[in-house]
């Protein structure tokens, strides 16, 4: 906890938070990392398999094969979300199911399913990017900033 946050708390509150902290189970960091490594690695291996499949049997190149590969993983993740399986895998896998593209598909699909009861426009349309929205907003913005830097560097003859 930062000192800045501590300043707002009274002495009793700080004492209690320390008291409570000693009695709270910690997140199992090591086992979470191992689970994430296994789950994330498995998803990437499946992706690799699809890429190989599209390259050897459907005439894609290594670069063009990434599009159908990502699409396949997204479809699988959305189906697993719809069948109510993905969140159970994620409780075990943690970061391993969040970081790959499947995690992004899950955020969009789960929000869309959840708000179906409020209708297609205000419910599904208005809420499906509830969790994924910040990623898109800041992802696009940072891509824009990086592109500007690249253009400037190129203009200066740096690249």
């Amino acid at each position: 906890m930062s000192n800045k946050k501590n300043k707002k708390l009274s002495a009793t509150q700080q004492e209690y938070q320390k008291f409570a902290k000693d009695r709270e189970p910690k997140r199992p960091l090591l086992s979470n990392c191992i689970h994430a490594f296994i789950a994330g690695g498995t998803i990437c291996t499946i992706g690799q398999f699809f890429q190989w499949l599209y390259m050897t049997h459907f005439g894609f190149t290594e670069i063009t094969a990434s599009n159908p590969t990502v699409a396949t993983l997204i479809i699988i993740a959305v189906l697993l979300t719809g069948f109510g399986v993905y969140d159970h895998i994620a409780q075990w896998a943690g970061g391993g199911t969040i970081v790959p593209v499947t995690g992004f598909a899950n955020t969009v699909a789960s929000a869309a399913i959840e708000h179906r009861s409020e209708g297609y426009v205000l419910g599904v349309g208005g809420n499906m990017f509830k969790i994924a929205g910040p990623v898109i907003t800041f992802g696009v913005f940072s891509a824009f900033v990086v592109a500007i830097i690249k253009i400037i560097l190129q203009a200066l003859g740096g690249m």
Partner: protein
Amino acid sequence: MLHGHQSWLFDQRPVILASAVAGGPFEAEGALAADFDILHDDIWLGQESFEKAEKKFLEEACEKTIHKAGLKKEDIHFFFSGDLLNQIISSSFAARTLGIPFFGLFGACSCSMEGLALASFVVNAGGARYALAAASSHNGAVNKQFRYPTEYGAQLPPTAQWTVTGAGAVLVASAGVGPRVTCATVGRIVDMGISDPFNMGAAMAPAAVDTIEAHFRDFNIDASHYDLIATGDLGKVGHSIASDLLTKHGVDIPAEKFTDCGLLIYKDSQPVVAGGSGCACSATVTYGHLLNRLRKGELNRILVIATGALLSPLSYQQKESIPCIAHAVAMEREGNE
């Protein structure tokens, strides 16, 4: 009536004429399934939304309670109910169906004992012959409002709790046969600066301790007065904090007497992380399991302290800490004077 600083002594000893609890499939697999009157294998209850399903749970629990008491809706004078959804829609909509004069409560998960305390007060004071108190929560509806979508794959920390899907209702009457409501202590807000909504147990434990201490002080009693003291939904983390905090404050409650509804309701094998939570947690366990134990004579006197975290999804995003509250109600077996 007023006793000490923040407690009520019910000298007329209002009777719990009947109670009923309804639960979902996860509760049916739990440790207290036998104490549920109605169990559903579908969390949707055939409704279009989680919110409508929660209202249905509440209606069923209320109607079953009235039916068990051998009364009709028209006989009930007042209905006290609360839930966790915005603008307490489950309670208001259930009250619309029931057509009983209604007080909507918001005490988050403390609604169960808040409602029972108020219903008993009104009956004790001669303000009603029959008053109904109820509370409900729904795992899907609560996750949708306070956390993430149900199917979203976020890993829960070990302090997180599982919201109970269901509802519990209790009918308090001025005369009849059944367990008695003897006294109640109204809690004040305690905020120890915890702001993590996945750590409700630690946030609410000090409120439970504050109310227990106030209760003992107001009635000049100690833990030996009760056979069982149960908090509402502190879960594993909050329960161990509350136990240690009571010891630290010099209040001695033997471990075998001190429990938590959130620890009782599910089996260890169920993936509920730190235990159960939600309005329905204390409502279903108290109005089902604990009242049944009073009726069977396994327990003579119990104290239930329902704990509530009074946060909103907005207050949490605005980095506010979580104000917490706890209300205690004491119940006794019929004939235990």
